[in-house]
Every structure is written in C-alpha cells, then in structure tokens.
C-alpha cells in the first residue's frame, strides 16, 4: 500500500478497508510504503492500530518502508513499531519477505 499526503482524518479509514480486502483474500504479507506520507496524527495511528490488530488475527506480516524519522518516532512512541517490520525501502522489504517464504 502506498498512502499519500496526510493520514489525519476519517478519509484515511480506506487504508484499513484496503488492508481488510487484502487479508480477506488471504494475503499474508503487506508492505506500506511511507515515501509519500507527509503527516500522521492520532487518527492515523488509530487506523494503523486497527490494521495491526487484523494482521495479528490473520497471522500475517506488516512491513513499513521509506519512513521519515518523524513517522518512526511517532510509531515508536505509541508502541506500534514492535508489531511491524521496518525497512529502508520496498526492495529491502521484498528481499526479507522472499527469504521467509
């Protein structure tokens, strides 16, 4: 998934809906590329909390890539970071995921 701009309002709920669709189809590995994300607030965190919860329920894997330091700090602060794998870029994430399959 490649969200863009601000993840700061209820419009961003579609991120959670998209991940629901993937998980519903049996997808076990999801990569979220943050390169185009400018801002995340508590609503955004709440949405990712929901995604993480469902990833766990489906025994799947969630990877974050291309994160700016501010995003990383936010996810660390709220404790979400320990439930995801963080990579420098998509290529690194894909290499990791290929190694696991």
């Amino acid at each position, binding site marked *: 998934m490649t969200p863009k701009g601000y993840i*700061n*309002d*209820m419009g961003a709920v579609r991120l959670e809906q998209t991940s629901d669709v993937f998980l519903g189809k049996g997808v076990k590995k999801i990569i979220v590329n943050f390169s185009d994300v400018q801002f995340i*607030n*508590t*609503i*955004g*965190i*709440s*949405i990712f*909390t*929901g995604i*993480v*919860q*469902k990833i766990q329920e489906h025994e799947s894997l969630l990877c974050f890539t291309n994160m700016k330091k501010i995003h990383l700090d936010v996810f660390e602060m*709220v*404790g*979400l970071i*320990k*439930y995801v794998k963080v990579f420098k870029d998509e290529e690194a994430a894909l290499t990791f995921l290929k190694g696991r399959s």
Partner: protein
Amino acid sequence: MESLVDLGQEVSSAKELAEKMKAALYVMTGIFSVPTAALFIYHPQRKSLELVTEKGHRDKAKKEMKLSVPSAGIKRFRMNEPHPILDMSKTTFYRQNHAVFMRLQTRIFIPLFAKGEFVGAIALGKKLGGAPYHPEEKDVLRVIAHQMAITLHNTRLFLELAKKASENKRLYTSMQRIYHDTIQAFAAAIDAKDDYTKDHSYRVASYAVAIARELGWKKNDVEGLYVAGLLHDIGKIIIDHDIINKGEKLTTPEIYEIKRHPQISYDILSKVKFPWKNIDHFVRHHHERIDGKGYPDALMSTELSDGVKILSLADAFDAMTTDRPYRGKMTLSTAVQEVMKCSGTQFDAKMTNTFFNILRRELNGEVKEKQILPHLRNVDITDFNTLDPATVYGGASMDSLPGKTEYVLTWQTETEKAPRTL
C-alpha cells in the same frame, strides 16, 4: 487533537454527531493504541445505551451493540470515570450486558456525564499487546470523555429542540389549514344565503388576489386580502333572505337594510383576532367608491386603502358577470365596458387597469396559471376581442401595457383535454 476541538462546534444532525464522535473515538484509540472501541448514547425512555459509532468491530456484532441500563446502574457510576470492566463484574449492569461486553472485548467502560446528567458511554477494548490502562492514561481518558459528554449532551438538546420545532411547524401548518378550511366554510355559508351568488365570495377573493399579486403585494398581505374576500359579505347572514333574493326593485327600507351588511361584517370580524391586518377594514369599506358616493362611510379615494379599492372592484366585477335576481349576467365585454365607464368614479383606475391587464394576458395565453378566466367559464367572452383596446385600457394607459392587442381566447375547462379556441 483537532477532532477533539471540533467536538466543541455546533452539531446539527444525528449523522454529523456520529461523524464527529467517530473522529473523536479514533483520536482516543489512537492515543492508547486500542483497536476496538464503541460510543453509546443514553436513551432515558428506553433505559438503554445505543450505539452512535464504533471502531474495529465486525458488522455482525454492531447490530447487537445495545446495553440495557437499570436506574440503579447509573447511580453507581462516577462522572466520566473510566471503570475497568473487571471492577464492574459483580454489578447488575455488567451481568445484564455480559454478552455484549464480551463481543465488544471491553476492558474499560467510561460512563459519560454532562451537567450531572447521564448521556452515554464509551467502551474501550484491550490495548494492542494487552498492556493495562495506567492511572495517568485514565486521567487523559477522563478529559476526552468529558469533552465527548458535553458534545453528546448539547447535540441531544439541539436535536430535541429541532424535533420540537419541526413538530410545531407541522402543527402550525395543520392549524393554518383548519383555519383556512373554517373560513372557506364560512364563505360557503355566506354564499348559501343568496340563491344567485354561489361561490361569489370565493371568486371575489380570487380576483382580489390576482390584482394584489400583480401589484406586488407581500405574500402575507395577499393572504389577508384573500380572507377578506371570502368573508366580505358575512354581514349578509343576518339580512333577511327575501330581501337578498328579491327579484323586483327594492324599496327604500329594503335598500337601507341591505346596505347594513358591510357594517355588520365589520362588527362580526373586528372581534376576531386574525393573523392578518385590516380584514375588518377591508370588509367594512368594500362598497365605498373613490368619488365618496359609496357606503357605509362615504369615504373619498384618499381615505381608501388599496385593499378596499381592489375588493370593491372584484366584488362589482363578479356581480356583473353572474346572474342576479334582478338581471341576467353580462357578457365579458359588457362587464369590461361597464367597469371602464366607472373607472375614476366608482373604481380606482390603477386597479381597473391592473385587473384588465391580467385578464388580457390570460386571454392571450401569455400566462400558465390563470387566475381570472377559470371563474368566467359560464360567461360569454366571445365578444371580448371586438372591444376597442383603448376602451378597455382607458386610452392613455394602453401604451404602457405590454403584450398583444389581438385576443385569442384559449383556455381549458376541467373536462376538456384540448385547448378551446374561441
């Protein structure tokens, strides 16, 4: 936090409330990394907490998210205090709603109070990873909950007021309809007194409305004139039926008797508090003339209001175009010539010109909604286009009137499908 600030703004619908509360709920769950939460509003009549919005629950579970609240249950809650669900396990409230709490995966239950009133509740699920809620986190929850409680309270008041306002509006419309129906019934009773003037009041009211609208009167004033038109002859109710329907020439005492009806109409209607102005004034003077030779007060043009002048013309025109005990109805052209003959003496020229301008446009088919012609179905109008327009419009004023001068008479009767051209 913007979403929390946003809670302070006015919420004007249940849908808007749900949207704002959902955003606030997401803020709350975002702060504490809680995947599931639900917000309820309290319905005192149903003694239940009903779902406003939620986060993270499957669709199936949402329908069943309703908590019953015994009165004793509310008393146990402290204002906006987050209660760990385990602490509530021995309460009747918890036992009654055990299944729902399980489905909600509730760990913290926060009753919402605003101005001492129980308004709703928040149910928060377990935090991601299952860590407990710390005391300082509960303080933050309490602050957010307080803000949400105020919004719920204010919105509920607003929605109740809006509902009452809507109900009042409905009642007002219903009363207005009853009022109009009553007035119509009075008008029918008045007209029933006179064998020859069935629907006279209704036609006079309609003609008067047409002129007033053409002159740009305000809606409420037009409505008042309409009512005055319907009731202008109410005084005839106490005039002897034989005098009203007498076919021969009236004697002097009989003329005196029949001329009492505007005064009697005034006496009756001046005691009624109408929502419109000048009804009694209009009915009292509907037989006045602008040359001061009318009755009951022989007022001159400058002393007569436009409403009186309109009503006087509408009344006389309908008298001319309907059968009377003492003569048959006139053709349209005869009536128009008669009115024009009296324009400037009996009738105000502004009113006659306005009236005939509307009539001309209707005859030429220039207007969709005809206001005069439908009432002239039983009147011979075929000779109207033989009239010299200068006669109709008084010469000089003709130039200022827009439209054609050739009259093609087209209108539809209720039973005819195709327009009739005369």
